């Protein structure tokens, strides 16, 4: 485990390294990983800001049920980070509800 990465170092050979874009920033990920795994590994825990209260939300149930880790993938909204696999060149946008995302960052 390096300082800025939560991937366990010793115990696995990962898939091919790929690049994805998260809110315009380039991020290294591995083929086979879910979007959620890649985000959490890089310390990104929030996937969206809620519409009503403007609260941050992220990965919760981790099995496709709670619908809290929704974000926009390749322009398509409402993708679940926990069940969406990484592909080369994927663009991910953390989702803004009606809340003030920029002010809360």
């Amino acid at each position, binding site marked *: *485990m390096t300082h800025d990465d*939560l*991937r*366990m*170092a*010793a*115990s*696995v*050979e*990962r*898939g*091919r390294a790929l690049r994805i874009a998260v809110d315009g920033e380039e991020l290294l990920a*591995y*083929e*086979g*990983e*879910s979007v*959620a*795994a890649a985000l*959490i*590994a890089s310390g990104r*825990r*929030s*996937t969206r800001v*809620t*519409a*009503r*209260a403007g*609260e*941050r*939300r*992220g*990965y*919760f*149930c*981790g*099995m*496709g*049920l*709670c*619908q*809290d880790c*929704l974000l926009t993938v390749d322009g398509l909204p*409402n993708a679940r980070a*926990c*069940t969406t*696999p990484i592909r080369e060149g994927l663009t991910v946008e953390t989702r803004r509800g009606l809340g003030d995302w920029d002010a*809360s960052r």
Partner: protein
Amino acid sequence: MVVGGGPAGLAAARTAARHGVRVVLVDENSELGGQHYRQMPAGFRAPERARIGRESDEGRRLIDEVRGLGVEVRLESVAWGIFDGRVVALATSGESSRIAAETLILAPGAYDRPVPFPGWTLPGVITASGAQNLVKAYRVLPGRRVLIAGSGPLLLAVAHSLLAGGARIAAICEASPMRHLWRYGPRLLPHLNFVQQGHHYRREIAEAGVPFLAGHVIRRALGGAEVTGAVVSPCDGEWRPVGGTELHYDADCVVVGYGFLSSLELSRLAGCEERYAAGLGDYVPVRSRELESTVPGIFVVGAGARVPGAAVALEEGHLAGLAVANRLGLLTGRGYSREASRARGRLLHLAGFRRVMDDLYRFGAGLHALADDLTTLCRCEEVAVSEAVAAVRDGARHVDEVKAWTRIGMGRCQGRMCGPALAHVIARATGGPVTEAGVFTPRPPVKPVRLAALARGGD
């Protein structure tokens, strides 16, 4: 047709296919295995010495066996409805289809019981299964310093995987008092394999210097935008927080796992009868000796019927597979009786262990006193506990009424996250039993499906 490719569904498919039944096995994930046998993605490989659990290897063998038997496997397929008895509606990669099944074996599994408490929506607060999936499938840690709160043996398994991955664990808070364990001694004697596994985990946790706090529950998760810590305190035998020392832990991840709830939406939609099991804090489908529900031709097995552990799930799947083959005349009467009574014998043996676990980790409804008025009850629609209480004050008695008045349960999770807790909020407000508050009426699609998929359904 078998819905769900975890241990129960795989075992059902294997047994049925072995006896010559034509089997379609559907699962919404991209690989079979379910939560218990969660597989690493293609392209990942763990060297032998670095295995985190035996489960994924066992699962691999079972999956390969099922595929080798010619079972038609449909992955990334969401069974989103049951119509006209046993017609299952599927959405597969953007297309919808229907399969009219002669017999339906439902093995939909379970999910972590959602328990609202102050701060439970903060990013970094995750379920025990969510933590296990990150570590088992992707070898990614959910945090560097983790607090684990909940009840049951899964807490130990989570701690084991997190420690193996190099995380630090702030503490483990087990709601059960875990007292007088000696009284279970004689009943556990035939199940030393399970006991040894638990003992091994406990020793490892102690050696890592992790505090194990029995009789403690989480009070709140702390943090402004994301989680930064948590407060825990002692609880009574019903898991109700009691006064006493509050302990504060810094953590960048809080893992919560107060047991499981069966995924009952499909069996409910099909009209299968249920009863409430107070000791489990969950509804359980009513089943015959053959594990058939009250709807003829629909079987419910594994954690989708009650959460029994993988060993039980495998036997139940096997038993249902036998029953189906028998009905199609693919087994001799004597062959069926012999095989079925062997499976029932093994289930009886496992039930002895299960009863100890059920008693030791008996669900405490006091858990649902953790939320305060301002706590978010419905995560999707962002509705607080106080709004549900106000609806009850205005006369609402059933979860469906509260739903119509407050939007609690109208969101994308379709009430999975809030429904069970809402019933407890209503029960507390009225003073009545939790069963009187009822359950949300299930409606298809039971899981979100893109409209484009339905439009491309061809019917």
